């Protein structure tokens, strides 16, 4: 059934659903830097109201000590969102199978493509990039190392952007696969921007396909940062490989 048509309120807006259409029920929780007392509970309620919720009820309040209090609340969203206005930005490509990708490379490039991967700067989380590049792969999806027409080089973790770019030039990489897992204090934004800056300084940015992935990476974010694509959780080697080869073809890279 197509809920979009049916599941909206009179103004065609979609609202959260508790147990009745458009009741707008939302659960939320947060901590306030206030000692635990009635006033703090009032403040919690006010927070809910300031978010445009009605019938806000504080179902739980706890003293966290040190002048902090924790709250669980329920409330009802009075407005709604216009789904017809929303757009999903995702990378333009369709995922092919391993074999198809190898064939595609033979047909369109007639040579092995070089994919260079790393988890850059201070980030030491290799499991993600390994899942994409190493033979073993992830959830039964083999990694890029297993592709005949791909030379997959995984530099591992904590690779400085400079070393990464140097290696890219040395290996004449066709695609750079960057991983960023740690996002605290938005450190990933700084790291990713730094890499792009260096690539542009070296004047090689448009000579290669640049993609980034990580649990909190979206395609939208990647584009904003100047990457060709971004990949989130549960990505597999075939996804990124499919994008890279189709993107190279689109950009008539040889």
């Amino acid at each position, binding site marked *: 059934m197509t809920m979009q048509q049916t599941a909206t309120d009179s103004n065609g807006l979609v609202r959260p659903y508790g*147990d009745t259409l458009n009741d707008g029920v939302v659960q939320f929780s947060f901590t306030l830097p206030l000692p635990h007392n009635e006033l703090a509970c009032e403040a919690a309620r006010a927070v809910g109201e300031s978010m445009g919720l009605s019938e806000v009820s504080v179902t*739980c309040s706890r003293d966290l000590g040190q002048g902090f209090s924790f709250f*669980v609340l329920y409330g009802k969203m009075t407005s709604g969102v216009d789904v017809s206005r929303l757009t999903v930005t995702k990378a333009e490509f369709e995922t092919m199978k391993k074999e198809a990708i190898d064939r595609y490379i033979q047909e369109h490039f007639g040579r092995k493509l070089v994919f260079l991967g790393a988890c850059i700067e201070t980030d030491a989380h290799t499991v993600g990039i390994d899942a994409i590049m190493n033979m073993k792969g992830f959830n039964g999806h083999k990694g890029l190392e297993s592709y005949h027409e791909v030379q997959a080089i995984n530099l591992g973790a904590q690779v400085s952007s400079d070393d990464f770019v140097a290696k890219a030039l040395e290996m004449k990489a066709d695609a750079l696969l960057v991983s960023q897992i740690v996002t605290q204090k938005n450190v990933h934004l700084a790291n990713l921007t730094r890499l792009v800056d260096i690539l542009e300084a070296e004047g090689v940015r448009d000579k290669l396909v640049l993609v980034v992935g990580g649990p909190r990476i979206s395609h939208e974010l990647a584009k904003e940062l100047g990457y060709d694509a971004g990949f989130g959780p549960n990505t597999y080697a075939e996804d990124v490989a499919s994008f890279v080869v189709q993107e190279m073809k689109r950009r008539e890279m040889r």
Partner: protein
Amino acid sequence: MSHLIIDEALVAKARESAKIIACQVKQAVNGLTTSTIERASLRLLGIDGVNTEGVPLVNIVVEHLAEQNLLAQGALTPVVAAMDQQGMTAQEVATAVACGALTLTKSDSNSDKIKNKTLQLASEACRKIAANRQQREQLIQRLGKGPTPYLYLIVATGNIYEDIKQATAAAHQGADIIAVIRTTGQSLLDYVPYGATTEGFGGTYATQENFRLMRQALDEAGEAVGRYIYLTNYCSGLCMPEIAVMGALERLDMMLNDSMYGIIFRDINMRRTFLDQFFSRMVNAYAGIIINTGEDNYLTTADAYDQAHTVLASQFINEQFALMSGLKNEQIGLGHAFEINPDSEDGFLWEIAHAQLIRQVFPHAPLKYMPPTKYMTGNIFKGQVQDALFNVASVMTGQTIHLLGMLTEAIHTPLLQDRYLAVENAQYVFNTMRHLADEIEFKPTGRIQARASEVLAQAAQMLAEIEQIGLMEAINRKMFADISRQPDGGKGTTGVIVKAADYFNPFIDLMLGGASNDNATNSN
């Protein structure tokens, strides 16, 4: 399965006491019937619908008969006599009575001719129910059912159509059993509302049409998920027998049906309740419906540790009443609950002791295990953990019917997402601990064993005492749930009727015999 050492002699003694207790009650109410038993019988005859004021025709006919002083002989024969004379269907007779066009008289209502006709009509009704029962068995045969503990989910939006949405979603999420919670207060209505309803508080009206709509939806869902989905409702309150009939006609699979809940928690008259539960369970039994008893409720008003033995004692009594009504052991879903104060040290050990004891004392009963409710709070994150430990206890002790705990129990009736999270919680725990029960043994010298033995001894002792004073006096003395009720007090007393010598109701003989093929119980 892990095992506790159980004093079987003591179990036998307790069961014997319970049997005597149940017989005493049966004697005490022999020679009595109730208005709702008569209405239920008329429903079986095919009378349905309401008048312009929304009063059910069965209520109108029964009141009419009372005015005519004909009720003592049972509502069936006067109606059948009228059908015979007027060449009308039962429904037509009822409609005629309702609009005052027809007055029912004694006439030849207790002639053999009419009695025979009544018997025939009654057995037709029984065949309908037997057919539903067979259909259930065929569906289970074809679709199969989930592994135990069965996931039991409630819907309670107040609106049958919202209920259906939520129930279907729940089935897709993994529910094995769907219970439609009744609206607050319906249990005290002395009639059954009619038609599809969309307004209820804390639950949805139990009407035959609502039963039908949900049954249909769950049959479809069952086909979609490749698993038979059980439907449950409440056979409880002032209309137990009529709701039993509705459930039988619409192929419900389980019904909450307790021999004392109405007395204790709804202050319904004792005799009324004992009569109604007997008739309604007889219908449940014939329809192959699994009953769920309500001992869990005791622990919402009484302490789960101190009063654990009252739960066990009550289960022994409910078992005996059930067997008397023709229910098979596989149909007796005795209730208990995970309600020990979460702050008490080793509380989980006592929950295990209680659950495992009951599991072993009633080896064939599809035990109904209720989640923590009383000590749930507005802290939904702690609630998830309380429910997780409940799930652990259930799989560790091999419970059968597992009511899913809701993280929002203390806040509101379940939201769609609450139910999803509850299913996810239980499925994870059950799967990752699948064979834990086979792996562990309880130390024979341990605290768990000691606690179990203590509870059994207390229960046997309590039953011995009740055997002396009688069940009605025991209830009067607050022996269950810390609540006291007088034998002659309570709601619905006026509905208790002394049967005349010529009282005739063939359903009792027809149904107590059990359905034609006997092993065809909706068993686990």
